[in-house]
């Protein structure tokens, strides 16, 4: 009863605004209201002021760096709350579901095999890590940035923890260690702002670093330091959530 009323009300809410009003702008119009006023300034002055041809990176890390700092803090808080919610010790195990039939060959070995660990660990994971470092440091010239690099490092840890049970990992962090790593990211970000205050400017104003290099170089140094903070924060959060979730669930048909 409540479900059919809801669906009917939603159908009415979708079609009535579009039959009666015309306030949304036409797609593809360069003179519409969201495409003027301040975005023109960002596009035209991104190269000469921020020294980065990638305008999206210039917007999120240079012109609006304060918002990105709080976004990294929110990521850290999400990782921390997952650890806190799953902090109890369960009294009995979750009952295993015996719905998987294990096929066996004639001499007792199971037919189901895992992926070959030696090829996966020693060939693919270092390539992904090198690509993550490339995406981090070239974020201001081509596509990329801090978020993508942090997620790629998290993906490497995911491969590592799901393929090999507890033998020969590349890097393995405990739950408390990964939560600490997720907290170091916003700390680096906030410290960059304090260094610019010590140089005599406002918070996160990259022109006033206390270093004696050219003005374009100052923006590059500021952007790189801030993006390293974002990368460590995002990678730490993903590793924390994975560690907390993998303690509770178990894979009952892995036998190596």
């Amino acid at each position: 009863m409540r479900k059919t009323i809801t669906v009917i009300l939603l159908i009415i809410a979708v079609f009535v605004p579009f039959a009666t009003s015309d306030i949304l702008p036409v797609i593809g119009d360069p003179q519409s209201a969201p495409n003027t006023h301040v975005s023109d300034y960002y596009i035209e002055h991104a190269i000469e002021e921020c020294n980065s041809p990638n305008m999206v990176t210039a917007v999120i890390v240079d012109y609006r760096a304060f918002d990105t700092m709080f976004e990294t803090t929110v990521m850290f808080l999400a990782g921390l709350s997952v650890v806190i919610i799953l902090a109890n010790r369960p009294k009995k195990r979750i009952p295993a579901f015996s719905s998987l039939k294990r096929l066996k060959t004639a001499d007792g070995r199971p037919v189901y095999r895992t992926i070959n660990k030696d090829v996966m660990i020693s060939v693919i994971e270092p390539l992904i890590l090198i690509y993550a470092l490339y995406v981090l440091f070239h974020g201001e010239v081509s596509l990329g940035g801090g978020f993508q690099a942090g997620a790629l490092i998290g993906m490497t840890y995911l491969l590592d923890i799901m393929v090999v049970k507890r033998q020969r990992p590349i890097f393995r962090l405990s739950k408390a260690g990964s939560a600490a790593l997720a907290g170091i990211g916003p700390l680096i970000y906030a410290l960059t702002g304090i260094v610019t205050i010590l140089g005599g400017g406002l918070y996160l104003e990259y022109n006033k670093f206390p270093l004696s290099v050219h003005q374009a170089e100052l923006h590059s140094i500021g952007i790189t330091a801030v993006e390293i903070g974002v990368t460590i924060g995002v990678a730490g959060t993903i590793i924390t959530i994975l560690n907390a979730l993998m303690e509770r669930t178990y894979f009952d048909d892995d036998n190596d």
Partner: protein
Amino acid sequence: MTLILQAVLLLGLIGITIAIIFGKDLMISVVIYCAFSFLTMLLYNIMGAPDVAFTEAVIGVISTVFFIIILRSIDRKTK
């Protein structure tokens, strides 16, 4: 021309959502969610936002694997 391509992909997304709501097994919903994430990545590429598409590709994979890890310890059949 690109607008017609975007409309076709949006219709595909709407069809996938209906398949997620009416699926009888939770594993079907999770695997179709992975396809949903891939289609949204294509959609962001066509619209001229390759940064957003790159981020969505990586995070779609990680989000799907979160769902699959949880799926090992709950009941897979649903009404």
